[in-house]
């Protein structure tokens, strides 16, 4: 028959054994964690006065002294767990002082040894720590660790460490090329990783703009957005005509941030077939306070795309008296029915915001001007009272 009781008994024995093993492992982890946490707390208590000394001395010119006694691996780990988050949060001189201290304590050496561990989790932990420690000596080791790793999330953790430790823009370029050639990640993720570097990567980003690879072009354009004070490379203007919509948008954003557009350009893009580009420009004019382009928005508030129409209304509300008057005209139907409701909505919103923010004489003057303007088109209506 299909019932074998002997096999069933064996199965019960195997299942119970596996359950005992699982329970043993789980409880082992729990107990281990509890003991480590207790040991770590005791250790932190021992370092209490030392950590207080560090906090006080951070603002002084003198170097930070390492603890007097020789530290065990566990003590180094405990100090590392406290000091690394400080380094992450601080910048400038404070960070430099802490980095020197970590080197003196031996944290760099400790993590370099762990970088050779047979366990991938330990190697990753060491790479992560060395990145925060900005240890420039390990970049090549991190690079080879990157090349050896399976292409999963850990690659991006190692990549961040490389960007943090590298002192050579060429290495960052190699890193980006490796990620682009082997991964499927968003260009913004690579740009975010590159941002970890303290090096001037402008030449690298410009080189990327001349590559045939659209992903590299995008990374170049995103990277340059951080450095809009510099002159925009000529190739960015031709990128505006790219067939890739994202490249077009990024190139335009770069030109907008650098104010490298003429009125003719602005007029052209406000009528561009892609609604995203019309929206981008309508939004930019508002938040940048470019009152010289106020008149150009008159047409956009009547845009067939609801989002563009709303963005334009919002921008007009940000563009002073003239913008407010265009909103009033549109809401009163002077330019036709399209966009009338949207204009009305933002008009009331703006008036409400103005009255809510009244604090100075200028605010009162501004508010009175707006009410005057509103009444010019709508009279002393109840709508206004309701809006306020």
């Amino acid at each position: 028959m299909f019932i074998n009781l002997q096999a069933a008994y064996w199965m019960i024995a195997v299942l119970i054994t596996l359950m005992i093993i699982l329970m043993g492992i789980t409880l082992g982890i729990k107990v281990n964690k509890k003991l480590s946490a207790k040991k770590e707390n005791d250790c932190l208590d021992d370092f209490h006065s030392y950590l207080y000394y560090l906090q006080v001395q951070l603002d002084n010119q003198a170097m930070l002294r390492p603890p007097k006694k020789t530290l065990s691996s566990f003590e180094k780990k405990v100090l590392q767990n406290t000091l690394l988050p400080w380094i992450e949060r601080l910048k400038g001189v404070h960070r430099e002082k802490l980095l020197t201290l970590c080197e003196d304590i031996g944290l760099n050496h400790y993590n370099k040894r762990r970088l050779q561990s047979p366990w991938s989790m330990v190697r990753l932990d060491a790479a992560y720590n060395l990145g925060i420690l900005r240890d420039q000596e390990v970049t090549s080791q991190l690079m080879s660790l990157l090349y050896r790793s399976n292409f999963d999330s850990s690659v991006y953790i190692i990549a961040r460490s490389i960007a943090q430790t590298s002192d050579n823009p060429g290495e960052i370029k190699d890193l980006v090329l490796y990620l682009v050639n082997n991964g499927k990640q968003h260009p913004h993720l690579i740009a975010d990783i590159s941002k970890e570097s303290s090096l001037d990567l402008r030449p690298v980003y410009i080189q990327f703009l001349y590559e045939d690879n659209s992903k590299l072009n995008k990374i170049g354009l995103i990277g340059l957005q951080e450095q809009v004070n510099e002159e925009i490379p000529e190739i960015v203007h031709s990128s505006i005509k790219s067939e890739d919509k994202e490249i077009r948008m990024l190139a335009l954003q770069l030109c907008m941030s650098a104010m490298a557009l003429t009125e003719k350009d602005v007029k052209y893009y406000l009528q561009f077939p892609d609604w995203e580009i019309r929206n981008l420009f309508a939004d930019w004019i508002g938040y940048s306070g470019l009152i010289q382009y106020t008149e150009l928005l008159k047409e956009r508030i009547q845009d067939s795309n609801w989002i563009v129409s709303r963005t334009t209304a919002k921008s007009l509300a940000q563009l002073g008296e003239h913008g407010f008057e265009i909103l009033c005209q549109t809401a009163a139907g002077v330019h036709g029915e399209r966009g009338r409701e949207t204009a009305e909505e933002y008009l009331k919103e703006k008036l409400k915001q103005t009255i809510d923010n009244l604090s100075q004489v200028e605010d009162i003057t501004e508010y009175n001007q707006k009410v005057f303007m509103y009444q010019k088109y709508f009279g002393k209506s109840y709508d206004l009272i309701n809006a306020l």
Partner: protein
Amino acid sequence: MVRDLLLIYGIFAIYYVITINTIYFGIIMFSFRKIFRIMKETFYSKYDFLSGSKHMPPISILVPAFNEELTIKENVQSLLALHYPEHEVIVVNDGSGDNTTKVLIDEFRLNYYKPIPAEQNTLPTAEVKGVYYNPEFPKLYLIDKENGGKADSLNVGINFSNYPLVSSIDADSLLENDALIRIARKYMENPEEYVAIGGNVRIANGCSIAYGMVQKVRLPKKLLPMLQTVEYVKAFLGGRIGWSDINGLIIVSGAFGVFRKDYVLKIGGYRGGYPGEDMNIIMKLHQYMLDHKLPYKIDFCPDAVCWTQAPDTFKILGSQRKRWGRGNLKNMLELGTQMFMRPRYKVMGWLTVPYNIIFETLSPYFRITGFLALVGYSLIDMTAWNIVAIFMLINVLYGTLIGMGSLLIEELAFRRFPRIRDYFKMVLYTILMFFGYRQLGILWRFLGHIQFFRKNNSWGTMTRTSWNEDEKKEEAA
């Protein structure tokens, strides 16, 4: 003769359950394979910094709400407080009969605006009555619409949303601060292929909650929420991590998931009319991507946590499980039959859908008849009682083993319940689950099927309680 037939069928049903456990055991092995990768991501990704990065993609959060006056305020507060660079929260009131709309209008001082213009709509939905907004909370929109069901509300939210990623959140759930950034980080690693990523749903009963956030994690004190806690840990950590490892995930929980809007629009949005819209949309995404031979992934992000209220009465739990049964049956009849054993649907066609049809949808029939056969057999003659008892014991042990495996995954990567007594309590409830709770679940699913065939499509009983209800009752006592 009858006695032998009953015994043979009863033993067959027990083998059936052992097969389910064996497949689940295989899936949990995949979960163990993946968990070390997840641990690396969880421990070493710099979420604090990413949440301030302008390089993260903007996300529209959609909150369908029907009679949610007791929980909606905390839910929206938690969503507005999320650590995320750019997101909008779109609450869609699905014609609630209670004060859902009023609670939000009062809390956030929202103003009424006209309905959104028709040209923005791309998915057909019930009529939208209007939009409420307050510039002081620029991320929040409240859309008021005629009743049309959860799927319809989600479609309204999709139509209104401004961003390329949409996230569906249940109105009785709370997202952890970094839940969205954790999913977004995963998405950024492969934006072309990730079409949907699900979050991990945990039971909030027993936890203390303030300002729309879980402040202290504790196990529930009541029986049913406690059983559901271990059930969810097993399903999400033991099951979904493994299924996602082989790209065979059949569901992203409606409580919390992130989707690429362009693909959701391509498949026509959420399907209304029946429950199980969360499973339906995932099956449709699989089908669309495989039909068009597009590379894709549907993944699960267990460290992105959403806390939800578990039903704490048999009546509400029964309604929920019957609804799930109806939804599952509808999806299997509508899409499962199209994908069953079809090579073009790869893992879905060969494993996920057959597993779901044979071992989930049909399980009430095999289990109930098998159980009746064993009862009948024991009434006639109990000479082979030891055989029945041994096989039942194997099933309990096997199920408990899988539950304990899931608890190990929890301990390795997440450690939400660090107390040792919590572990023993969870193991105890993992065993207890096999004595009544499981059988009830099967019965409810069967009753759900009957409702489906009788075309009874009501939502059933669903009474919400406000957050911290347990604590309030204790204080009052």
